[in-house]
């Protein structure tokens, strides 16, 4: 009887490899191969269009690290955005999930949909909406401010260097908070109802429930949300491009915009690839860092 469990374990592990074949094949062909090709081409001066390019070694990379202050300024924009957005989105998403899960079923249904809708709306629609909210002359915000007499607070929200980044962050958070909420909500569904009830009977109030139950039991989801949000912020593009096109000056220009310009306006695809790879590595390192910090402690 001792041999059987052992063989089963090994059997399972081998089966695991088989289960992984489809994903590995697809990712090797469509992800790893392009990554490898991109790395190779980043050492050249390929324009992206013709077949004649030359090997230039590390030139592109040296340039990025020594002569491209705009790249790092943009990185700063991304980092600020990542920090603020992650903090706000995760907190907001978590709180919303806690509140929604405690509602009556009818309300739950409504809020589940309402709060998630912004995630589904195409970016083009989002830019139409928020442009009209932010525009200085006829925009909703300024009209509202004028109506209540706070004219002095009126600004050109997406054109004023002081507020442009904030405006884009608000829009992005508005959009993605629902995403984090849904993930938290699904995780919270698994928290056994009776455990929570008995805690309440014992006199636990809402905050204690959160601290001792909701928070710890969704730790895995927190990790997922954290990583997805941060890495998403580092690679942000859509909303920044549509709302401010890089903003007044370069105050909202994100790294992805520089990469795009280098590739499609300067026709320096090799360099754009190098910039992409640097971004890629930074994002990967960030992810590994967070996974390490939040190393899952198995909680049964």
């Amino acid at each position, binding site marked *: 009887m001792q041999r059987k469990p052992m063989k089963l374990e090994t059997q399972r592990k081998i089966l695991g490899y088989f289960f992984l074949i489809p994903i590995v094949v697809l990712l090797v062909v469509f992800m790893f191969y392009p990554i490898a090709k*991109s790395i190779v081409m980043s050492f050249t001066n390929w324009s992206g269009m013709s077949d004649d390019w030359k090997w230039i070694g590390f030139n592109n990379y040296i340039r990025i690290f020594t002569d491209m202050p705009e790249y790092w300024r943009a990185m700063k924009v991304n980092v600020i955005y990542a920090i603020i957005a992650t903090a706000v989105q995760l907190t907001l998403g978590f709180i919303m999930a806690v509140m929604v899960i405690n509602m009556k079923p009818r309300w739950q249904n409504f809020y589940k949909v309402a709060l998630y809708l912004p995630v589904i709306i195409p970016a083009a629609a989002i830019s139409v909406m928020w442009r009209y909210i932010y525009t200085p002359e006829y925009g909703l915000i300024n009209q509202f401010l004028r109506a209540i007499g706070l004219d002095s607070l009126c600004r050109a929200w997406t054109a004023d260097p002081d507020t442009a980044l904030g405006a884009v962050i608000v829009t992005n958070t508005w959009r993605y908070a629902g995403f984090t909420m849904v993930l938290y909500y699904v995780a919270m569904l698994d928290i056994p109802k009776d455990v929570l009830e008995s805690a309440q009977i014992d006199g636990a109030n809402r905050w204690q429930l959160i601290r001792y139950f909701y928070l710890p039991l969704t730790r895995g989801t927190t990790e997922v949300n954290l990583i997805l949000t941060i890495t998403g912020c580092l*690679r942000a593009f859509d909303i920044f491009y549509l709302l401010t096109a890089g903003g007044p000056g370069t105050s909202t220009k994100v790294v992805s915009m520089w990469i795009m310009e280098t590739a499609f306006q300067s026709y320096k695809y090799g360099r754009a690839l190098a910039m992409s790879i640097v*971004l890629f590595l930074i994002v990967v390192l960030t992810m*590994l860092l967070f996974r390490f910090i939040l190393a899952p402690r198995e909680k049964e």
Partner: protein
Amino acid sequence: MPRTQMHTAVQPARKRKKHSVSYYVEQFIFILMAAFVLYPLFFVLLTSLKTNTDVILNPFGISTFEPMNYITAWYTGRVGSYLLNSVITTLVTLFFQMIIIVLASYAFGKLKPWGGGVLFSLLLMTMFVTSEMTTVPNYVTVRDMGLMGTRWSLIIPYTASGLTMGTYILTNYVRGLPKELDEAARIDGAGIFKILWNVDLPLITPALATLVIFNFNGVWSEFYWALIVIKDEALKTLPLGLINFQSQFTSDYGVLTAGLVILTVPVVIVYLFFSQYFIAGISAGAVKG
């Protein structure tokens, strides 16, 4: 598969008659939040029912009513022909994605082959590629595989692109599942596949539903890759129809937003349908029983 009750409000049984002030405050905050979230969407809906000149001259008022926008959007955006293509492409892609993701998550989460952790981290990295890195190589790959001009030029790359995030989320979820059920089934003599099918799949339904929702939107509204690989009118997907509403110097915002609403409605329907699978974990009840 029994459907357990929704995770209902956890309130002590007695206190139902009088709502405290904090209750009303909470409700108010929530309504505010919902308004904040919904107003911009409402604005888009409103815009889609206005004439373009009205949108530009009077963005927040309601002065014209032009449901014709939807008809124009339908014809100019060639929704009639592109819709079917989007449906087919998305359904097939999702089908493949779900299978591959479930298998992979199960492998990473439960079967845990040797080196699985490293492989997992490696695969996660692919979430961070930029489109500049992948477009040209994938284009050449698809062409060399002879898939150009077929639906597969969309389906296969789409499948590949949705795998990583889905695997990440689902593996995380699978790892959190209680092991007791598995072991109980095994003791009952069930083979691996039986366990997978009968016990585990139902358990991960909520997470799977989440993935379907996330990935559906990703595939349905994908634009850039489709723009590059699909040249044949007969294969074009819905987002490509949106090109016809925008130009460098003018755009018809009324028709454009109508087109966007048409594009988004199916995604909302899918969300509504699949969110009913966000039900309390079967595991919660099953373990105790």
